[in-house]
């Protein structure tokens, strides 16, 4: 059965201890498109994206209910191994977090190496491919043995994207990937996101509305843990249905 949706999220709830941070989210995320999640800070958008690859649960006291169908299969089903799920999804974090003790090469190859792949030729080709995909190859190809920490912030973030791409995921989850970067580095990452959307399903959390408008095909607006509005980016920005959304995107609050 073919479904155009990569994720189908059904009555998703999430808690931190007794704090209810996501309330009954229903949403379908289209394949090979960029979906942006926007909302004021504390609205649950980071929690939302972390529920998609079961990262939410690694925090003590975290709870989840509801269903998240990935390729039609519920990732919260009892016999699903979260580790397997995470391998199919790359994740990029707010701050660039290359592994500090590893070289650029080892960072890009980390996912494969940690999963037991030792074949040098395969690693070489994957590292090159993913660094190219992350538009970093030309800048680092002569310094592959340097520490990942020696790169600039924007380069580090692209290295993290390359690291995520190296495990050949189907989805890229990006949690405010540009929040720690300057405008030039941000522009590069945005270009990269558009390019990635040709082959990958991208979900990006951002507090920057212009960024959502620039890079995404669909936009979801979260407020206090509830999904207020979800639709095509054009629609949301030009013709929001909810008053709250309109107020938010016109900058009246948040």
């Amino acid at each position, binding site marked *: 059965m073919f479904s155009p949706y990569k994720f189908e999220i059904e009555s998703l709830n999430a808690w931190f201890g007794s704090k209810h941070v996501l309330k009954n989210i229903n949403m379908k995320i289209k394949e090979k498109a960029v979906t942006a999640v926007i909302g004021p800070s504390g609205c649950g958008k980071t929690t939302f994206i972390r529920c998609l690859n079961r990262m939410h649960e*690694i925090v003590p006291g975290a709870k989840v209910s509801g269903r998240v169908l990935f390729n039609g299969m519920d990732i919260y089903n009892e016999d699903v191994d979260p580790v397997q*799920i995470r*391998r*199919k999804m*790359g994740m990029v974090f707010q701050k660039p*977090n290359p592994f500090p003790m*590893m070289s650029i090469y080892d960072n890009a190859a980390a*996912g494969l190496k940690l999963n037991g792949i030792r074949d040098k030729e395969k690693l070489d080709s994957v590292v090159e491919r993913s660094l190219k995909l992350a538009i970093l190859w030309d800048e680092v190809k002569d310094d592959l043995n340097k520490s990942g920490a020696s790169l600039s912030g924007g380069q580090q973030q692209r290295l*993290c994207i390359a690291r995520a791409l190296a*495990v050949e995921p189907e989805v890229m989850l990006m949690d405010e990937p540009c929040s720690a970067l300057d405008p030039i580095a941000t522009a590069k990452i945005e270009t990269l996101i558009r390019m990635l959307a040709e082959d990958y399903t991208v979900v990006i959390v951002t507090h920057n509305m212009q960024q959502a408008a620039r890079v995404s095909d669909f936009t979801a607006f979260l407020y206090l843990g509830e999904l207020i509005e979800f639709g095509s980016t054009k629609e949301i920005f030009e013709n929001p249905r909810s008053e709250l959304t309109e107020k938010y995107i016109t900058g009246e609050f948040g």
Partner: protein
Amino acid sequence: MASYKMRKIKDRFMRILVWLALLMALIPLFSILGEVVLKGASSINLNFLTQPTPTVGEAGGGVANAMQGTLLAVGLASLIGVPIGLMSGIFLSEYSETKLSPAVRFFNDVLNGFPSIVIGIFGYTIIVLSIGFSVIAAAFALAIIMIPIVTRTTEEALKLVPATVREAAIALGVPRWKTIVSVVFSGAKKGIATGILLSLARIAGESAPVLVTMGYWRWWFAGLDKPVANLALNIYIFAISPFENWQALAWGSALVLVTLILGTSVIVRIFTREKY
């Protein structure tokens, strides 16, 4: 305010007092180092480094057997102490959400402050009473002294690895245990090595637990179920002896031990400082 002048004077006075107190605390340190180097250096020669302990009244002799024994006891102790300390440190840092970890941390701290002579007696009742005074018993007691130090420093080193690094690995689909072993652990290697080194230095200088688990031994290594000689214990035995050549040996041993222990501290400090 008429008292402003008084307040000023008091302030000045206290400032001087604070620095004076610091100076007073450092005088013993410099005195100890000075004496040990001065008196120790004159007894160090080739014989000192290659000969075993002399018998009473015999001239010359050295501490080679004691260096061998200390290395052996410390080495054996670390075989027990390092794995336990490492794993406990990993547990405290990586599984701090469990109910067990506050209790583990608390009792580790408690054990850390424990008199080493009591730990020595424990080694006596549990091992000496069954196999006799032996290097095994001493290593056991020293290992127990080591465990809380290694645990603590491992925990702290692991906690310095940012949470985002763990998340990155987990998001790559790496199981948690593998994340800990290959990513987090390698990020904390230096700090952990530092902690182990410091704990080795500490137990190399312990004499009280060695005294009650091995006693004094003036020969070479003769088997794991026999005692071995020990530098720190030798210092005690030699220092309270009335023989001048033994007292000289005590100072020489002290120099060796101090070089070993303070050298470790200094190296460790230089290394850890590089990081920041």
